[in-house]
């Protein structure tokens, strides 16, 4: 290894360490500042809560078994919505790729549904499906599925025409073109859709819980704000941050594995 290369690697390493250091500092400053502002009553902790209060209330929730119940409920709804929307959206995209007539027919409807704020359908969903998990999961699916269809379909349609010609010259039928080319070529599209859907499925499940639920983090947030217990609201939000971040990290790990396997 040359001196210049060694220097470069060292510089790079320092840069990474500094980045991490700043990240930790930023978080520590935020938490510390928050705690101080609350403790010395610069702003009333009744309104902004404080890190130590949040830790305390999470402890209380955990001991009573409430924490598990709410976390599991939200996770269940979110992951179910996430998986159903991704799977069903991909299947829809395949059907639309297959039939260009159907694609042309449905295009204006899909565009309209995409621009429609899905939250507006909340009350209808509750009337139709009642209060409970199915309605919340449906909300999450509704929010994710349209963008899944649109992204996957545009991925399918942007596959190199010359590759399709190549397969046709080998007498490949449409099904073979789909399985040998279109689907494997769009693994990266699927991964980016998964990343988008992590965020959107949380939006769906939390909004669903706002509208109608007896458990879950969204319920805790609404309940906490109604009884003016900001500690509970903040604690739920913090837990939400951790869970959403964890889910995104899981997708990122999946992406690494897939990229390795597909040699891209």
């Amino acid at each position, binding site marked *: 290894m040359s001196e210049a290369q060694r220097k470069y690697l060292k510089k790079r390493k320092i840069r990474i360490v500094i980045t991490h250091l700043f990240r930790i500092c930023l978080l520590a400053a935020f938490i510390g500042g928050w705690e101080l502002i609350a403790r010395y009553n610069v702003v009333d902790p009744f309104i902004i809560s404080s890190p130590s209060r949040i830790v305390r209330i999470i402890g209380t929730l955990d001991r009573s078994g409430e924490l598990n119940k709410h976390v599991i409920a939200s996770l269940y709804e979110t992951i179910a919505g996430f998986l159903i929307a991704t799977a069903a959206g991909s299947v829809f995209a395949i059907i639309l790729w297959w039939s260009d007539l159907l694609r042309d027919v449905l295009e204006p409807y899909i565009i309209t549904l995409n621009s429609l704020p899905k939250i507006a359908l909340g009350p209808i969903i509750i009337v139709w499906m009642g209060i409970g998990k199915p309605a919340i999961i449906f909300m999450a699916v509704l929010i994710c599925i349209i963008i899944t269809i649109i992204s996957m379909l545009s991925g399918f349609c942007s596959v*190199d025409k*010359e*590759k399709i*010609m*190549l*397969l*046709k*010259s*080998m*007498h*490949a039928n449409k099904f*073979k073109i789909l399985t*040998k*080319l279109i689907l*494997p*070529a769009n*693994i990266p599209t699927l991964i980016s859709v998964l990343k988008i859907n992590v965020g959107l499925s949380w939006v769906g499940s939390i909004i669903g819980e706002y509208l109608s639920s007896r458990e879950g983090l969204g319920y805790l947030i609404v309940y906490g704000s109604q009884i003016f217990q900001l500690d509970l609201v903040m604690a739920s939000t913090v837990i939400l941050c951790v869970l959403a971040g964890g889910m995104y990290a899981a997708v990122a790990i999946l992406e690494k594995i897939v990229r390795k396997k*597909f*040699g*891209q």
Partner: protein
Amino acid sequence: MTLLELKDVCFSYHSKDAETTAVDNVSFTVDEGEFVGIIGPSGCGKTTILNLLAGIYSPASGTILLNGKKVSESTSKIGLMPQRDQLFPWRTIESNVLLGPEVLGKRNRETKKYALLLLRKYGLGDFIKKYPSELSGGMRQRSALIRTLVLKPDILLLDEPFSALDFQTRIVVCDDVHSIIKQEKKTAVIVSHDINECVSLCDKIIVLTKRPAHVLEIIRIDLNKTMSPLKRRESQAFPEYFKKIWKLLEDKNERSTTKISEKT
């Protein structure tokens, strides 16, 4: 023996605004073992002719006979080598080369053995398990050629197979491809707009006019057939052929430019 015969072939593209005639009454024949070049100004409909030969498009009128049968009904196989190598990045070289048999449901020990034999014979033995991104442009092009050879085609169709390579690689790969095709005793049709390339490779050159393409002249190249394209470039008669084709293409272009100036 005549392997491929085109008789008064016409083809048009249809769009909302216009009907564009791309191929107009094209007739020529390709004998077994022959290397035939199709040359013409870019955008003249050369690739359309290849797609017609490959059976991907059907002629609007006229017939294309392969081994005495219509291309669409013929059991004779056609190997298409596209402009860029179009190797699938998620497949290893071995798996890429076996794409054809896989599509036809003929991926078995026999086809695999043949594919490995070809890969080893043409110097890709050490790269069987590598991904296309790990290979040089020339090697990728060779892999693409082997991918078509694995199907044991009666005729090879090459669509400007060297246009994506830099000048030096281009000449080397051209020699490479020529020697492989000769060794495997294949008949080949190459589409190109590079006069030098065509003269150095082909036994016969079909010169096309601007769109709509029709045959301007068929030129027989009487250069030593056992020589490599690079060697043929050095032979005495080579510049004569170049000049002749150049003149043909130029005359035609001039005539069309005068036509335009008359109009304006």
